[in-house]
């Protein structure tokens, strides 16, 4: 079937030839196509760095924000218009360094947003400094000295922060990544995909060759089932996912680690408080009629009666 829209914009991607970002972009475009998402109802929000440019290359709404702050922008966009599909793209420095607090907060809230981490172990656009996912003592060719800091485990952090869909993909396995993206976008709640992405210019440790040898699919284990069927099952499935998340080195698992559809989303929790929220977005609730506030004088005085004092004067004092 012909897609209804062309999802590729006419902006030339200025990434280094052979960059893992191309694989992620292709998988994203294909996923959008197969999901047939309405571009006007879809928003890609990015941070800063090579991955930050992603929205410009895609023909859906794009918001290219500040270093580390894509998640807060996405939070405001989604909560103000919960009808939108919101997808965050960020690098490992962006989401797990400067933006780590926001990364955790999104999981806690379980807002229906998909986060795609372009995980290449280095800061690309500033020429290869060690990022939060580069292991201790690792030395890429761009580093003057071996890395002096310990790495963050993105999958483990997402699991412990409350993300209700957690997966890992590989940039150069496009078909597989596309399916992960589709599942993540369709998941109701905070979804996270850690995408292993070779940086061919600055990271000569995590190369395409390294990943090709190490990566294996979780579902190759016939017993693997990451989906929480009943909320009682959640902790058992979470522990299994945690265990799997610790595997790194000769064998690196990709695939879906954990899915829990039984946790309410932030939007649903808001809907319980705000009677209009489930049917009327803050972004399109009328706030004026003929240039006047929707609140009449009478409604105003009724609503704020606790602040209004009737003056009886001093008669009978």
């Amino acid at each position, binding site marked *: 079937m012909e897609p209804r829209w062309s999802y590729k914009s006419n*902006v030339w991607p200025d990434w280094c030839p052979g960059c893992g970002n191309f694989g992620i972009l292709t998988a994203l475009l294909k996923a959008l196509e197969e999901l047939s998402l309405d571009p*006007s109802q879809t*928003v890609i929000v990015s941070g800063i760095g090579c991955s930050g440019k992603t*929205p*410009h290359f895609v*023909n*859906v*709404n*794009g*918001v*290219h*924000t*500040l270093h580390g*702050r894509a998640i*807060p*922008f*996405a*939070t*405001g*966009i*989604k*909560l*103000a*218009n919960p009808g*939108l599909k919101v997808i965050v793209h960020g690098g490992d420095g962006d989401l797990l360094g400067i933006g780590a607090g*926001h990364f*955790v*907060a999104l999981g806690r809230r379980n807002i229906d947003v998909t986060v795609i981490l372009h995980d290449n172990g280095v800061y690309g656009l500033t020429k290869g400094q060690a990022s939060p996912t580069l292991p201790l003592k690792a030395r890429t060719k761009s580093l003057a000295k071996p890395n002096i800091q310990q790495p963050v485990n993105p999958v483990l952090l997402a699991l412990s922060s409350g993300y209700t869909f957690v997966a890992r993909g590989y940039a150069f396995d496009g078909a597989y990544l596309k399916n992960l993206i589709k599942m993540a976008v369709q998941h109701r709640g905070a979804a996270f995909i850690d995408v292993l992405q070779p940086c061919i210019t600055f990271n000569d440790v995590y190369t395409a060759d390294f990943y090709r040898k190490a990566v294996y699919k979780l579902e190759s284990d016939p017993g693997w089932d990451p989906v929480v069927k009943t909320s009682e099952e959640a902790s058992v499935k979470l522990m299994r996912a945690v265990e799997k998340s610790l595997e790194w080195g000769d064998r690196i698992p990709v695939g879906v680690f954990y899915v829990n559809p039984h946790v309410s989303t932030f939007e649903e929790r*808001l809907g319980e*408080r*705000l009677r*209009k*929220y489930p049917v009327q*977005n*803050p*972004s*399109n*609730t009328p*706030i*004026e009629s003929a*240039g006047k*506030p*929707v*609140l*009449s*004088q009478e*409604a*105003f*005085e009724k*609503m*704020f009666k606790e*602040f*209004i*004092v009737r*003056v*009886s*004067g*001093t008669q*009978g*004092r």
Partner: protein
Amino acid sequence: MGGSLKEVGILLGGPQGSGIETSMWILSRVLVSKGYGVIADREYFSNITGRHSYIQMLASSVKPPRSLKYPVEILASMDAETVFTHFTDISEGGILIYDVNTSSRRIDEIPSMEDATRERVARILSDKNVEPSVESVVKYLERDKRILPLGLDFSALLKTLSEQYRIDARALSRFLSGIIVSSVAVVLGLSEEAVVQGFEQQFGERKHLVEQNTALYRLVRDALSNHYGAVRLDEPGFSMEKAMVVTGNDVVAIAKIVAGVRYQSYYPITPAADESFLLERYDNIVDETGEVVGSVVVVQTEDEIAAVNSAIGAALTGARASTTTSGPGFDLMVEGLSWAGMNEVPLVITYYQRGGPSTGQPTRGSQSDLFNAVFAGHGEFARVVLSSSDHLEAFYDTIEAFNIAEKYQVPVIHLLDKFLANTVAVMPVPDLGGVGIERGVLAKGGPGYKRFSLESLISPRAFIGARDTVMWYTGDEHDEHGHIAEDPEIRVKMYSKRIEKLNLIQRELPLERKLRLHGPGSPDYLVVGWGSVKGVVLDAIEYFSEKGLRMAYLDVKLLWPFPSEEFLKITSGLPDSRILAVEHSYGVNIAELVSMSTGRRIVKRVSKYTGRPIMLDELVKGLEEIVSGRRERVVLTYGA
């Protein structure tokens, strides 16, 4: 106290968390219900329980008061610390209400008192040859200052109450506010009926609290029966059928609901957070039939960075969005502010100044962030900075902040301060008939829509989510579609377009949004200031005009873009030597802003940076010093 008074100053003091604030609310409402004007400033430490907290109030029979004065006619103290800290604040012939159980307390037995304060007070007492005990201070006040001490036995009153209502001893401290309210009401001769109404409005559904506090009022009235109406306020001389009694935080939150705010984010910080609490309490907006007509999403974010950026995100979808903070939080928001400037986002930041730098004085007031609001952010971009001078102005300005933000697609900083945020004041019920909602030039979007079209200075705005519309935003320089562009020609066009909006704003905003001149035309002296110094300056001007000196006040409401031409026009007849500036800061920064914007140099400055509000009496003295030519710069320090 002979005769009756036009206005009465009242000071209520006690440990933080003991109900001083409750007392303030009840007394304010009782006085307003009787037709009096009230203003009450709340001073407190950055502490939850135990430190010295006090309320300074003024009740007026002639007008809604706009400034505070010292000394006060009535000091009502819950504890010994209040007596020590404020005994010099009572006017001759005034009244001291105190707990007789504290009589034997000595100043060195009060651990909650700061050492520096204790030493300062002890020095004052020793200079007067007064023993540092409550008893001696009371005797001194009675003998040397003709102050009437009204000692109440707080524990006996509470014991009687607890026996009558079987109240658990641990819950009794909740009734301290009742004693304070009742004793002040008795001294002012306020009727039982009015006081009970005050209790009813405060305690609402908790009927037992109304009943028990009423019983307490009667006990206090019996104990003070000889002093009922000892301080007489004149019959109220102005009439309002109904009035609002609100803090600045309240009034801004209420105005945001009228303005149609649909998204508010915040990270907890004093003195801004109360605004968001109120919004959250009213997050279902209802019409006169109780039907919900809209809702406000209030989000407590993980930090101020998330607060500002999520509000920007919400604004991109078309929701009226704002965030609220004070100095330290604003500092964190500045990167987002630049992004909003770059992307022409209508965002409102409500900025309540407090004492800095750093955490400075977290619970005290200041106006020292003027430059932070006007200049913060990297690069050059258009922003609007508005200030409000009192509660009613803050109401209308809050709505205007959103209108300006959307009309010109710029971030707007509404610059307020702790004095306004925490001060309770009476104001008329706003007239919504005069309120307009302007959303600016909107576009439906559609295929090929250019968010940053260069066809006009203000590009018609479509919201993310509009049908068949795709748009891009980036913090980088961009083309009309919002895609990154580094071409020098595009750079110049986009950069200029963003900044040149300031000229349009200058042209289109009416004069009364920019500058307001109060007092006589062609005055002898002109005082320049902004924000919450207005009230006290206006009262000082009145004082001087009674003395035959014509003084006027120029209230700068639009701080940026600075209304240079209008300022020059208004001040054209006056030499620099006849212009003064007043501000709650060391530098009196408004004078520097005037200087850079107009070339006029204001040398004469009155400054206060203790964190406490400017009192009428000290301002009058300060202005006299300057007008007499004795000094060019006066620093005010009054307050405990």
